[in-house]
């Protein structure tokens, strides 16, 4: 049995493993042109291309191609405003990259309001070559937030499980990639199943379930050093790890004392507290952002529904009453919404429930949708589904209006987890 852990940041797979397809966009998107940045030599990353792709896939911005235009302003002082107004472009992103003597890069960009004829925003950064890609995503976030009023989630990562090969000879990998699927890096490889990756709130660790010892165990792995430690390996089920918002505890599912129940494991003291009891399947815990309660899936009422319990224990309160299958909650960082898997007829879909009004709305088509995970800006949800018999990932806006697919050429991808904001 082969088990290989790799270190994030070391030589990873540079080739694009997941391709993005925009399947839905918003009408009335803001027209923005991203002009190729001025450079003084070969630069390891095409910053304007990354920014263009990010803004385009937000679905709220219509990126106008500037390829056919002769003028390439790299600074607001070089912008010919009447010319750009005639092209029906409202906003311009311009920039320049200067290579420094020490091999680092100074990057300046500006967001220009074409109609007003002024600079809206401008920043200068100094970064190493290996930080350029991330800088491009930060620029996308800055531009997106200024134009839409919403915080962007481009400078974030996703973790997911990739399964390659046929039943009986499947290999499993845990992958971390940019939120656009680019720069995937394998951080764990196994011949036994891997499941349920969960990011620590500081973005440094992933908890997950591994069957490498022929039974499910919960492992915590440092994403940057590759160091692993086994957190739970009790008899029976060890599953569904979920980090508390302060990063000190893991809620998890154990069946060592009977039926699968929710426990809380204190990572500092090692203590284990049982929260739920009874003969039902209780699993898939998710912490409320204030850390004071936990939502989980339970079939104690006959079929899976969401329940909420105080994180110190107590009486669970049922949260979902729509239909006979509601499971696998993901709670938005502001505590406003709960995303879940909802069965409608015989289709499994993603629905989003308003935490205050309890109104829920189905935002995907199904029929095998699962594993919803909120982006840290609370505006997008990544989830897993099936297309043409192949497991794929999709990102959808909370209102269901914007959607992209992330598809692997040769494997099933599943179990996505959107990272927190990276420090």
């Amino acid at each position, binding site marked *: 049995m082969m088990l290989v852990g790799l270190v994030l940041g070391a030589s990873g797979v540079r080739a694009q493993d997941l391709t993005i397809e925009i399947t839905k966009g918003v009408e009335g998107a803001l027209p923005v042109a991203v002009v190729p940045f001025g450079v003084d030599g070969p630069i390891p990353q095409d910053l304007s291309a990354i920014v263009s792709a990010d803004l385009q896939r937000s679905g709220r911005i219509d990126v106008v191609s500037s390829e056919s235009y002769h003028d390439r302003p790299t600074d607001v002082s070089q912008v010919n405003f009447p010319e750009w107004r005639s092209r029906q472009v409202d906003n311009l992103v311009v920039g320049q990259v200067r290579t420094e003597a020490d091999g680092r890069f100074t990057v300046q960009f500006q967001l220009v309001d074409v109609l007003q004829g002024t600079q809206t925003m401008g920043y200068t950064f100094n970064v190493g070559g290996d930080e350029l890609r991330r800088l491009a995503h930060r620029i996308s976030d800055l531009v997106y937030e200024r134009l839409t009023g919403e915080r962007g989630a481009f400078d974030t990562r996703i973790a997911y499980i990739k399964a390659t090969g*046929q039943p009986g000879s499947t290999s499993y990998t845990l992958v971390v990639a940019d939120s656009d699927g680019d720069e995937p890096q394998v951080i764990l490889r196994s011949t036994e199943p891997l*499941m349920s990756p969960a990011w620590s709130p500081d973005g440094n660790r992933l908890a997950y379930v591994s069957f490498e010892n022929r039974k499910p165990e919960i492992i915590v792995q440092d994403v940057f050093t590759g160091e692993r430690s086994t957190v739970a390996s009790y008899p029976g089920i060890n599953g569904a790890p979920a980090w508390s918002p302060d990063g000190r505890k893991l809620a998890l599912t154990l069946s060592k004392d009977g039926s699968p129940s929710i426990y809380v494991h204190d990572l500092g003291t090692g203590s284990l507290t049982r929260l739920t009891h009874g003969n039902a399947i209780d699993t898939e815990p998710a912490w409320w952002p204030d850390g004071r309660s936990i939502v989980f899936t339970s079939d104690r009422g006959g079929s899976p529904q969401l329940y909420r319990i105080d994180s110190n224990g107590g009486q669970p309160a049922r949260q979902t009453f729509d239909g006979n299958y509601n*499971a*696998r909650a993901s709670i938005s960082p502001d505590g406003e919404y709960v995303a879940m*898997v909802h069965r409608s007829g015989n289709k499994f879909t993603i629905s989003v429930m308003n935490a205050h009004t309890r109104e829920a709305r189905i935002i995907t088509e199904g029929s095998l949708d699962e594993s919803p995970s909120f982006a840290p800006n609370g505006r997008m949800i990544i989830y897993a589904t099936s297309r043409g*018999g192949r497991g794929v990932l999709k990102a959808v806006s909370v209102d269901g209006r914007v959607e992209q697919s992330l598809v692997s050429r040769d494997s099933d991808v599943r179990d996505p987890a959107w990272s927190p904001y990276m420090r």
Partner: protein
Amino acid sequence: MTKLLKLLSVTVLVAALAGCASTGEVGGSSDETTGAAPGAGASSYPYGRGGGVSGQAVTGGPEASVADRVVYFDFDSAEIRSDSLTVIEANARYLVANPASIAVLEGHSDERGTREYNIGLGERRAQAVQRAMVAYGVSPQQMRTVSYGEERPAVAGQDESSYEQNRRVEIAYSGNL
């Protein structure tokens, strides 16, 4: 319960009639050996309905085909179906006759629904088979359960027939792991 006892008694009867070298008592209770371990060239078979996928007699144990070591389930259910009893009984007989042998009962579900909930369903199914094996006389020490949920399908399709084949418990022996 009555059905199981009936099967057991009939099995004992058949063994006795077939003249197998048997040191067991006739008309047994549910937790005794129904006969000595099959000697070379002699194997007893349970009298029951059907038996295995091919309609041939079912034998349990590590040498048995996969078909003779799998129990299937209805959608959303962990109930042992009556057509699974021959498989369970045959494997129970092997374990009873080979007290040093360990079996791992691997529970599975089809892919519909959420992954961790399906881990719970797989465990329910494995535990149901374990209880049935205990009813046939197997010592709990000889068995352990593990659930793979939907993570290890037997077949890759997304139609009802594939789902049926994935809702299962596989009885695996050290030799099969």
